[in-house]
């Protein structure tokens, strides 16, 4: 490790609060006596702000995906807290009423036992002769095996209401945005677009903004051009990629879909691949569409992105 790297690591540890207090104090003293060191620390602090910007950008993209979950949820995620408790209370009263009714019924002696009154919504659970109260499990623990005796067909026992099984957080799954980042290569899309400066005088300016990472500015320049000239293919392509890079995947998709239907084969193929990468950011909700796009690409061995799409398909299996 070179001296530069050692210094880099030390500054990093200091900025991340990982230096022991005494060492941090000594380092601060060193900084106040060494202007160049102080400057390096400021520079590295700024870099860390840049890294934080990346984290924020990714979180915002994820929130867009979660927002879609909220919108697509049949009702539970949108129903108000008060209404949920009201429903739970009403259901509890109903259960008590049914339990009272059951107590008043004459006892039967020839069948396995009463049916559960309220069952868990988990349809995969096979009905048991004697339903058992399900206790919410703490997170990340293996489900406890039911004791054998509860499966015995003995005399009927009073029914015990099963409560909804708590849903554990989504398991750590494929990091789709990371996967998309691995496959998204600027040169796959932008080298071709660079030749389109003739489409609009604003295109060149927008491309400069795009290359400098100012995607919002690129979008601002390109959107009016598209309105005036809806057939400006490469302008539309640059707009779609500006939206993609800005983390606005839902906004990018309609443009990419249009471009994928273009008669210009290279534009269409690039856009199909870009569409697949955009859909990766919308996984798992968009899995059916992503599968279709990947199938379409891999059904044509001459497709410019056949190899990448095939590899991605394998990774998603």
């Amino acid at each position: 490790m070179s001296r530069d790297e050692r210094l880099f690591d030390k500054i990093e540890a200091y900025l991340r609060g990982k230096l022991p207090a005494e060492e941090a104090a000594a380092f601060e003293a060193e900084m106040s006596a060494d202007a160049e060191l102080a400057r390096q620390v400021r520079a590295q602090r700024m870099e860390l702000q840049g890294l934080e910007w990346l984290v924020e950008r990714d979180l915002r993209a994820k929130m867009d995906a979660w927002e879609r979950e909220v919108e697509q949820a049949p009702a539970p995620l949108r129903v108000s807290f008060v209404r949920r408790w009201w429903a739970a209370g009403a259901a509890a009263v109903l259960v008590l009423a049914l339990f009272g009714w059951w107590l008043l019924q004459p006892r039967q002696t020839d069948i396995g036992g009463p049916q559960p009154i309220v069952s868990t919504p988990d349809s995969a659970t096979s009905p048991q002769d004697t339903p058992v109260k399900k206790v919410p499990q703490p997170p990340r623990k293996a489900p406890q095996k039911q004791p054998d005796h509860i499966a015995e067909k003995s005399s009927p026992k009073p029914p015990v209401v099963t409560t909804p099984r708590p849903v554990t957080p989504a398991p750590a799954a494929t990091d789709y945005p990371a996967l998309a980042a691995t496959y998204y290569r600027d040169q796959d899309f932008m080298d071709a677009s660079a030749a389109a400066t003739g489409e609009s005088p604003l295109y060149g300016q927008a491309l400069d903004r795009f290359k400098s990472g100012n995607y919002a500015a690129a979008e601002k320049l390109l959107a009016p051009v598209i309105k005036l000239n809806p057939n400006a293919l490469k302008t539309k392509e640059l707009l779609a990629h500006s939206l993609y890079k800005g983390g606005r995947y839902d906004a990018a998709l309609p443009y990419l879909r249009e471009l994928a239907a273009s008669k210009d084969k290279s534009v269409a193929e690039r856009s199909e691949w870009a569409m697949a990468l955009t859909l990766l950011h919308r996984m798992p909700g968009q899995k059916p569409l992503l599968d279709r796009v990947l199938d379409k690409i891999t059904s044509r061995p001459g497709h410019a992105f056949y190899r990448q799409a095939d590899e991605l398909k394998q990774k998603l299996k």
Partner: protein
Amino acid sequence: MVTFFTSFALMANSPGPDWTDEALLAAVQGGGQEREAALRHLYLLPGLREAVFRFVLENGGNRSDAQDVFQEALVLFDRNLREGRFEGKSTLKTYFVAIAKWHWVGLRRQQGRYVEWEPAQYDGAAESPEVETLRAEHRELLAEAMGHIGERCRELLRLYQLDYAMEEIARKMGYSGADSAKKEAYRCRTKLREHLENHPSWSDYLTEK
């Protein structure tokens, strides 16, 4: 009756009550995929969104403002937790709502709106408006430099910032091992620094203010 049963079924499909504050805090601070699961849980947590929306709507905002505030609050919440600003003086839910309230009041004041309401101070308060403004000023410079280092470097540095172990980064990004990932992270940082240094206003940013 069907409605009641349906309500139970729907409740069971929503995120369950198994994330304690301790578990959430550990997951967010630990980074990695647990962090994402924890933040997703909070995002979908019944009651949290409603509390933020109610506050914004009752204090001069519309639904779109409320949505923005809710999302911004999660960004600030995540950052505060990772940077160790949360001191545990309240529950995480209360803390989240306090961040959202502070953010909305700050926005209203920036817009020149008089805000009578003064949110109670919460521990590990967000950075001062000056620091936040400075962050916003830097943002363009940083975004521009980030635009030059390539998507792969950006992804690697994002994982690094989230405290993923180098072994994990290597596995995710296809490097041969932790050492290669570390070297690559250093290379990406050097690349980032070069682009920052090429920016005409870089030296201004480094001047102590």
